[in-house]
C-alpha cells in the first residue's frame, strides 16, 4: 500500500525568517510513501527508505507558471541518522541538483518543512517538528476536506501562504519538547492490571510488547518519538495522609540518584481511575527529614509512615497517529524492603500528554482503546490479573493490616 505525498523543501533559515518572507518552497516533491511510513490525522512519520519522488517542481519565477517541472522517479532519502541513510541522502541531493538545475550546495541547504497528504476524505497539512532514529516527524496544522481533484505542488505552496497565521501561532511549538500539551494536567488518569501468581515476568512482558509496538502491531500507534522505553529501580517512602477532607491520599518520596528527593502527592479518597497528582523534584531532603517535611507541608493531616518499598518499573510509551495523545503502559514490581517476598505486580495504563498543534481531543476514547490493547496483550500472554484501580496505598494498607507491620 502506498500513499501520495507532496513535500516542500526549504532553506530552514529563510523559512523561519521572522518577517515571513521566506516561506515560498524552493522545491515541491510529488511522490509516494511506502507502507513503512506511518501517518494519521495528527502525525506523520517518514522513516528511512520510505519516500519515492516522482516529480520535482522547482520554484522559478521567471518561467511561465513560476515552476519548472522535472521527472525524478527516484528513491528520495530525507533521513540522516545512520551511515546508510546519510549516504543515500547525499546521493539523493546530487540527483536533485541535476534535475532541479540548482547547485549542489543549494540543494544541501534544503530540508523538508511541510507535507500534504490526502486520505479518508481529508487533506492533512503537516509541519516538520523533529528528527530521530525512527525518521522525520511532522505534526498536522490543518485538516481540510479533500478536494475532488487531487492536490498539486501549487496546492501545497498555496496552503503554506494561506496558513501563515496558523503556523505563526504554532511557532512556539517548533522547539524541542515545546510541542506537548496535556489534558487536565493536574489529574492522573490510570488503570491498573494487578498481576496474580508468580508467572508474570515484567521484563519479558515489557520487551515483547515494546517490540510489537515498534514493529507496527498496533496500526494507530507508534512508540513515543524520542521517548520510547525507560527502566527504573528506586526506593519509595510512603506516608498516608488523612484528615477526612478532600486532600487525603498519600505522599511518596522517591530517592534520586543525586541524593535529592522527588515528592509525589496523590489526592484521592478511594482507589479510582482519576486522581489528583502533584510532583515536586530535586528536594534537598534526607531520609531523616521526611517526617518533619510531611508535618510541615500537611499540618492539618495525620500521617502514617509505611515501611519503605523498592519499585522496579519499566515504561513503554506510545503515541496515537490520529490525535498525538501519548500513553504509557508500565510494568511495575513493588516489594516492601522488610518483606521482599511479598509483592505488588501491576501493568498500568496511563494518559501522559499530547503532541498536537491544536486542541487536545479523544483522550478518553483512546485511553479506553490502549487499556483494551494492554488487557488483550496480558490475556494473550496467559497472565492472570485483576482489572481495576488497586493503588499502592491500598497495597501498603492491606499489608500492614495483614501482618501488623507499620511505623
Amino acid at each position, binding site marked *: 500500500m502506498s500513499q501520495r505525498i507532496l513535500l516542500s523543501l526549504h*532553506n*530552514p*533559515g529563510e523559512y*523561519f*525568517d*521572522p518577517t515571513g518572507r521566506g516561506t515560498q518552497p524552493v522545491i515541491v516533491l510529488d511522490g509516494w510513501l511506502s507502507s513503512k511510513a506511518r501517518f494519521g490525522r495528527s502525525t506523520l512519520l517518514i522513516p528511512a527508505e520510505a519516500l519515492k519522488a516522482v516529480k520535482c517542481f522547482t520554484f522559478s519565477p521567471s518561467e511561465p507558471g513560476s515552476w519548472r517541472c522535472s521527472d525524478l522517479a527516484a528513491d528520495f532519502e530525507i533521513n*540522516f*541518522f*545512520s*551511515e546508510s541513510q*546519510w549516504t543515500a541522502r547525499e546521493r539523493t541531493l546530487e540527483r536533485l541538483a541535476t534535475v532541479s538545475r540548482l547547485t549542489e*550546495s543549494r540543494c*544541501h*541547504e534544503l*530540508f523538508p518543512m511541510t507535507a500534504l497528504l490526502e486520505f479518508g476524505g481529508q487533506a492533512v497539512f503537516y509541519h*516538520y517538528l*523533529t*528528527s*530521530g*532514529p525512527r525518521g522525520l516527524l511532522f505534526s498536522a496544522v490543518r485538516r481540510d476536506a479533500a478536494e475532488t481533484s487531487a492536490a498539486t505542488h501549487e496546492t501545497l505552496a498555496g496552503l503554506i501562504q494561506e496558513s501563515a497565521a496558523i503556523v505563526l501561532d*504554532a*511557532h*512556539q*511549538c*517548533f*522547539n*524541542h*519538547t*515545546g*510541542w*506537548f*500539551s*496535556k489534558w487536565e*494536567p493536574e489529574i492522573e488518569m490510570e488503570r491498573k492490571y494487578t498481576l496474580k501468581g508468580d508467572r508474570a*515476568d515484567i*521484563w*519479558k512482558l515489557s*520487551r*515483547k510488547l*515494546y*517490540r510489537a509496538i515498534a514493529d507496527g502491531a498496533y496500526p494507530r500507534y507508534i512508540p513515543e518519538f524520542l521517548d*520510547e*522505553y*525507560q*527502566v*527504573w*529501580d*528506586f*526506593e519509595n517512602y510512603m506516608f498516608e495522609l488523612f484528615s477526612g477532607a478532600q486532600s487525603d491520599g498519600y505522599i511518596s518520596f522517591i530517592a*534520586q*540518584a*543525586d541524593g535529592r528527593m522527588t515528592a509525589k502527592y496523590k489526592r484521592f479518597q478511594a482507589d479510582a481511575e482519576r486522581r489528583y497528582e502533584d510532583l515536586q523534584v530535586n528536594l534537598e531532603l534526607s531520609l531523616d527529614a521526611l517526617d518533619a517535611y510531611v508535618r510541615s507541608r500537611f499540618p492539618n493531616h495525620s500521617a502514617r509512615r509505611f515501611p519503605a518499598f523498592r519499585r*522496579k518499573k519499566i515504561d513503554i510509551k506510545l503515541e496515537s497517529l490520529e490525535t498525538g495523545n501519548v500513553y504509557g503502559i508500565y510494568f511495575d514490581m513493588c516489594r516492601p524492603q522488610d518483606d*521482599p517476598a511479598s509483592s505488588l505486580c501491576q501493568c498500568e495504563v496511563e494518559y*501522559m*500528554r499530547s503532541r*498536537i*498543534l491544536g*486542541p*487536545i481531543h479523544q483522550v478518553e476514547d483512546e485511553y479506553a482503546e490502549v487499556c483494551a490493547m494492554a488487557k488483550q496483550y496480558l490475556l494473550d500472554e496467559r497472565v492472570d490479573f485483576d482489572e481495576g484501580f488497586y493503588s499502592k496505598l491500598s497495597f501498603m494498607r492491606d499489608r500492614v493490616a495483614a501482618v501488623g507491620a507499620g511505623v
Partner: protein
Amino acid sequence: MNRHLIYGSWKLRHNEPLGDYDRHLALVPLPEHADVQQTCTLPAIDLSPLPNGAVGIMPSGEEFDELSLPPGIDWEGWVPLGLVEGDRTGSTLTHVLYRYELDTIQLIRLPQSVPLNERQNWWQVIWNVSERNHLYFSNYESYYRQAQHTIELEQKLDLTGCNSYMATSLAIYTALRRGQMKGFAPKLGREVQMWSYDNDFYEILPPTEADDHGYLSIIHYCLSKSKRNWNDPLFMFKKKIFRLDSLERWERNDRGRWLEPGADRQQRIEEFYNYRTRALPSWRRSRVDVVTESLATGNIFMINTDDCRIDDPRFDSFDTRLRQCEIEYCATQGEPVWEKIHDDLDKLSTEVTTWLAKLGIEAKRSAYSKLTWLRNVCREEVS
C-alpha cells in the same frame, strides 16, 4: 587483555528473587569496533544462537555451549549485565549496563573495577554491584550531574561562510557519529534537537543593587510537557549576568511565565527580576543542537549552530544577521570535575573548528554575546 560482555538474567540487576536458571551467565566477545571508555555504546546482540566465541557459565563455574545449552534458559529475560576484562592473572568487572534499548546497549564505567575471582561466584558479585549502584545505573538517564547550576560555560564560534544552520548541524552530527571528532560521540538519545523561537531582549540599566550588568530576555516557548493548551501564552524568562563577554556567565531561567496577549512585556520582566532595562530589538533564533558526550569523561556538551535574525526591517540585513556555533557544557554522566570540563570544552572547540573548516566554514573563537550583537546593530543603525 580480553574483553567480554557478560549476559545474565535481568533479575540479577534488579534484586528480584532468582529462579533455577537465573544464576547462569554467558560471556560474549566484545565486538572489535567497540570503543570502551567512560561509556560504551553497541548495537544489541542476539543470543539465540550464541554468537561465535561465546561461552555459558553455570553456577558451578562449569562452561556450556550451544550444544549443551541448559533446557530452562530463556534468553528473553537476559540482559548485558556488564563488561569483563581478563587475562591470565584474573578478571574484573569494569562496566555495567546503563541502557538497553531494542537495538542498542549502553554500558557505563564503574567508579572502581570489581575483581571477579572464582567463576561460580560471578553472579553473586554482579548482584552485589547492581545492588550497591542501582540508584545510579538502573534508572533511566539519572546518572547526570551538573557541575554548576547557575554558571553557563559556553565557547562561541563566530561563523563566516555558513549558509544553513541545518546543513551545518547535520554535517557535525554525522562527523560525530563517524568518530571523526576525536574523543567525542553523539549522546545516546535525543542527539539532535530542533529549535526556532522569538526573543524579546532587554539590557539591564544601572544602577542596580548588586551592580549587575547583563540582560533579561523573554523567550517565546514553553518546554513544560504539561501546559494546558498548545498555544497558551507561556514564555521563559531569562536573566544573564556578566560585565564583559566571557566564557562563563551567570544564568537563570524561569519557565512557564504567563503573559496574556497585549501585556507590557518589558514591564513584566522588569518587575519579575526587579531591574530597569532598555529594550533592544526583538529577534528570532533558529537553531539545531547536536548533543555530544566526551567518551573519556562522560562530560556532555551541546553544539548549537544558529541563525539569528532581527524582527525589524530597520535592522535586518544579511550583514546584521548573527551566525554562531555555541559549544555549551550541559552535564556529566558521572562525577563532574570542572577542570576536565574546561579541557573537554577546549578539545571539542578545536575539533568542531577543524571540521567546520573542512566544510568551508571559517569559525573563529569568541565570546561575542547576543547583547553585544544587538548593541552593535543598534549603534550602526543610529550612526
